[in-house]
């Protein structure tokens, strides 16, 4: 297993459950890290890999739901809740707050492993998106303010002539800006540039003002 292979974090205060889950999850070929409490989990060093969190609802100190609230950042792994005596209100709260799954103990192997697989896939996609976005941002940061002004026109499909008229400059200048934008953003085609702009959340110009 290399350093970026997926990892499952298990937080449960019952050593019997930790041991069993650790064994079960590693039998599925996944890395496991177990923690006794929310605090122990928060303090731990986490590898830079797709991950998911199997979290007991009833924990001494910070409860599972409280930990979930603390982790509401884009980078936290998806959460699968497990509980000894789950009640409907907590499960609703957990799911509303973005949990992937809510499993009542004892639960079957398939339920858990499928939920883990789903969660890891989700995290992998999210991580890719984050890194793509980060890369796009680096490219976008290279653009001059004028080029950033021109970009919405280009991705909206306006001819250089129209853009030039609208921005009060010459067609040739717009052509130069366009070339620079394509080069700096690393876009091979207009279609690719449009996708990049969408990812970055750049609003296309609806029609020339």
């Amino acid at each position: 297993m290399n350093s970026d292979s997926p990892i499952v974090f298990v937080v449960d205060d019952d050593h019997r459950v930790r041991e069993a889950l650790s064994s079960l999850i590693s039998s599925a070929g996944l890395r496991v890290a177990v923690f006794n409490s929310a605090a122990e989990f928060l303090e731990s060093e986490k590898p830079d890999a797709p991950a998911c969190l199997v979290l007991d609802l009833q924990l001494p100190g910070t409860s599972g739901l409280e930990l979930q609230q603390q982790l509401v950042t884009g980078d936290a792994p998806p959460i699968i809740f497990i509980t000894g005596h789950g009640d409907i209100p907590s499960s609703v709260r957990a799911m509303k707050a973005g949990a992937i799954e809510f499993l009542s103990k004892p639960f079957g192997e398939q339920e858990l492993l499928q939920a883990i697989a789903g969660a890891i896939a989700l995290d992998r996609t999210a991580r890719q998106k984050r890194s793509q976005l980060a890369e796009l941002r680096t490219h976008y940061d290279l653009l001059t303010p004028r080029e950033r002004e021109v970009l919405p026109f280009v991705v909206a499909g306006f001819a250089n002539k129209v853009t030039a008229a609208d921005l009060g400059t010459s067609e040739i200048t717009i052509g130069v800006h366009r070339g620079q934008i394509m080069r700096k953003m690393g876009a091979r085609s207009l279609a690719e540039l449009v996708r990049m702009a969408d990812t970055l959340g750049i609003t296309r110009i609806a029609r020339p003002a």
Partner: protein
Amino acid sequence: MQRGTINGGWTGSQGVDGDVTAANMATADLINILDAVEVPVVILRRDFTISYFNKAGADMIGLSPSDIGRVSRDISVFDALPHLEQQCSEVIAGGVESRANFRHGEKWFVVRISPYTKVDRQVNGTVLTFTNVTAFRASTDQAIYERECTKAILNTVADPLVVLSADLRIQTGNCAFYTMFGVSRDDTQGVPLYELGHGVFELAPLREHLKEMLGGSPAFQPVEVDRVSTVKGQRTLILDAHPLSFPGHSERRVLVTFQDITAIKQAETVLRELNETLERQVRVRTEELSLIIETIPGLVWCAAPDGELNYLNRRILDYTGASPDTFAQLGWTNFIHPDDVEPTVGAWSRAVASDQPYDTQCRLRRSDGIYRWFQVLGQAARDNKGGVTRWYGLLIDIDDRRNMEEALRSSETRLSRATRTATLGEIAASIAHEINQPLAAVVANGHACLRWLSAQPPGLAKVQEAATRIVRDGTEAGEVIRRIRALFKHAPLDKIDLDLNEVIAEVLRLLSGERTKRRVSVETDLDKDLGPVAGDRVQLQQVVFNLLLNGIEAMDSVLDRPKKLFIRSKRHSPETVLIEIQDSGVGLKDPEKVFEAFFTTKENGMGMGLAVCRAIIDAHHGRLWAASGEGAGTTFSFTLPAAVVRAATLPAAS
């Protein structure tokens, strides 16, 4: 004799005409006339020698007959007329009268120097007539003195004063006036008042008032003039005017006084601002308070000492949907549930009559006609002497709480019935609580086992580990189930003769970690001669364990005193032994409640522990109870029948 002398004095003038007798007669007449006049008359010749003086001349200015023929400058009387010779020469030359002031002793005279004209109109001397002006002179001196005094007084007056002519031109002012405007007497003499201070006094009301006053109006309405440029900067002045008139003079004058009220004005401004600030603060405070009262999540009312309502906050009006007028018309009792009117009115009347706080509950009709329960609180506000000035009241909606309380009461009834019969539901919940964890572990381990077995190559070491855990956890779960079943299915107890002191010691060993961790000290007072009880070791261990752990945990919140757990065992009666476990925790509100199933004060508790304990003790024909003084810790006690009944210790026969 004097007459003779005088006659002698006239020799030079004799022979004015030829008829001597007639002439002598005329001369005698003249001399008589002149001597009768109380005005000294002296005649000087061209060479300033005295040729004649009358009787008054001798009487009043002290000339003597020997002075006749002497030159005036040789006579000491005339020293007071230093320019006499020159004046006389001029009179003789010009024929025009001249005057001079003359002082003799205390007397003052005005001397008229007239030409002495002969019959041929030749002027060959002068006639000096001395008019006594002493009295007049004294009155003038007095007037001057008076005037100077007045001037001095006026100049020491701090307020500027100025006298204006009837056409309102400045005549004269006092020092303060000139100082204030930084002008001199000469600068302002005859200058119209309205030109003073860059025309600042050019004001319609002032003009009108002055005009009225000059027209004879007795009173002058003082006029305030703002921003007058003075040497002390911009000042605010009050102008007052008084007419001045002098008897015998037709001319009217005006005395104008200026009162500098700048400091007063500034003080007034400061006071006004202070006042405004205070008013604003009071307003803000009042607004805040009224906002608080309007937003407080309760219905607030206010009543006069006699109980008459005089204020209702917005929430009351919103809740009842009534206007203050409606309240006044219908009366507040109209909004109370008919069944509650009598007790509520009764309580209120009693409160008002006795000035005691008012606390009652009643149903209040909402705007939609639904009645909700409210707690009604009233408190009297008192003055210094303790008299009631006002009643303040609060209505708190307790409908939900009351409903919940009622629901709880019925569920309590149900539960207390249930705890006695140990329902299936309770057992199930207890089982779930105790065995879900090991069961989950067993299932997960089982799956892991299978997965490791089916791996290529099979992870046999892992399989073994997982299988071992399955056995361990499964056994544990089974033990729990067995115990619970034994308890609730009334299975025969595995009774042996048991030393409870030993059980306590065992449990204390088990809990030693917990005791250290939570800093609880344990004190025991165990009766060596306790004797055995017939009981199930596991179950009684469970009870002692539960009670000790409970005691330890009950002291978690204790910070201000040592956490002490006291355990005592003793013979309670010939047939029973007693165990007491006393903690120094916060105590229990209702010691009996803790034995009910699902009652718990712990965050993660199921509320089964003590219920189970009681069931175990009950099954052993013993008794378990708790006693608690609020805030003074709790003592859990249980009795069990002794295995060996002792002979009662009889009192010694007397």
